[in-house]
């Protein structure tokens, strides 16, 4: 290995501590190639999003999407999750996405449709077609927001740094009580979401989440998401164009065919 001056400088900075603040801005030429359009690897349709019995994504192993583990909830949050699971099984759990609301971090990384990862030295953008939603990960050495700038929002406050070709992201300041998937998993506003984002191979992006939440969870919860490369382009998203599905007397959202006729079993 050739020892370069920047390398020595970086090691020196690391040894002096406060690595994130001291890390030099990565050069543009040194950024990994994440070009193209990607799609969450997972069950293809909403109705198959999770297995009603286990709350794990159905068919995840067959699709080489790692099955996520059950969130290590504290008892009161487990009870709330079980209630949401019951609603989801009965198809009466409203997903914010269906009301043109954002899903927020980390649930936005489990959105339908396609996704882009756009790195530049000072920021990396993650554009999510569904919504549309946009995440901004600041890699210019800044710290998390403080004072009146530090209010909770959907995408949260994401700071990142590069470790080789892996983007390491720390997100705080997310809104609590947001559904993060179709099974109805929720976190508190104290959740801290760490991500390691890298290109695993030519056709796969990987995002390994470690979610810590002193209010809702008893310990860290690790979830891996994979994204396959798909043919672009990525398109605009006009949420209000979606047909308004009817809701029956029990609160169940009905499925319509292309002519607008209800096709659910009575």
């Amino acid at each position, binding site marked *: 290995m050739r020892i370069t001056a920047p390398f020595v400088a970086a090691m020196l900075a690391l040894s002096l501590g406060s690595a994130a603040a001291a890390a030099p801005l990565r050069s543009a030429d040194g950024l990994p190639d994440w070009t193209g359009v990607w799609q969450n690897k997972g069950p293809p349709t909403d109705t198959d999003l999770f297995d009603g019995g286990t709350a794990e994504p159905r068919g995840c192993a067959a699709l080489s999407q790692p099955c996520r583990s059950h969130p290590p909830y504290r008892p009161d949050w487990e009870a709330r999750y079980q209630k949401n699971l019951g609603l989801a099984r009965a198809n009466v759990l409203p997903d914010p996405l269906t009301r043109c*609301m954002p899903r927020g971090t980390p649930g936005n990384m489990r959105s339908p449709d396609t996704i882009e990862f*756009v790195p530049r030295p*000072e920021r990396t*953008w993650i*554009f999510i077609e569904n919504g549309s939603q946009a995440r901004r990960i600041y890699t210019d050495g800044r710290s998390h927001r403080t004072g009146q700038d530090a209010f909770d929002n959907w*995408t949260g406050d994401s700071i990142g740094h590069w470790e080789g070709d892996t983007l390491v992201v720390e997100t705080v300041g997310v809104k609590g009580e947001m559904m993060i998937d179709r099974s109805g998993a929720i976190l508190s506003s104290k959740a801290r979401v760490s991500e390691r984002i890298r290109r695993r191979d030519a056709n796969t992006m990987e995002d390994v989440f470690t979610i810590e939440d002193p209010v809702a969870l008893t310990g860290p919860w690790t979830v891996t998401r994979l994204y396959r490369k798909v043919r672009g382009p990525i*398109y*605009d998203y006009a949420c209000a164009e979606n047909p308004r599905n009817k809701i029956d007397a029990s609160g169940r959202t009905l499925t319509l065919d292309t002519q607008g006729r209800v096709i659910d079993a009575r």
Partner: protein
Amino acid sequence: MRARFLAFAALTAVVAAASAARAQGWAELPDWSGDWVVVQGEADPAPPYRAEWAEKARVNAEALKKNRTADPFATCGLPAGAPRMLSLPGVHEWIVRPGEVWHAVEDGNTVQRIYTDGRKHPEGDDLFATYTGDNVGRWEGQVLVIDTVGLRGDTWLDGAGRPHSDRTQVTTRVRRVGAELEADVEIDDPVAFTGPWKIVRRYRRLPAGSFVHDFACRVIRTAADAKAAE
């Protein structure tokens, strides 16, 4: 001699055109990083509308006076589209990379993708109308020239209710002028206009360390609906 010079000139032109089409490397790209907001300038000239389109603009403006939600963008979930997104309030980002530029606007999470990798517009059925259209860009030195086609006809050109047809074509030249970014916009619409409509948008950079916030239009609408229902 003259013939030989002309041949040389033609060859030079071909080489220049070929190098312009070549995707640029990082070193050749301008630094447009940071957070930009529209600088309020003088009012745009009146669009050169044909009579029936001037009437449509008048009807839209009247409807807006009665109710802001006459604006399709104000009802949430429908994008502002191009070229209106150039004028939106909130932060604009021009994300420049070799092969592609993203113009991202905080308002509405609007994203326009401008391909600078030498591709051409799709043809036939592949070119269907969308809100932000099909955007092909090229670099003329440090100037980004964007050609936009494939636009829907049901968006507005601005917040004043000015309509356009689905035959609109937009040429936008974006460049750094001093501390500002400037977009010179020429909007051609053979259906609605009698000639090109030229407008200018300028952007100033916010202080370093600024943030772009996320945008949830439905939340604002829900609050407004609740207030209206009181």
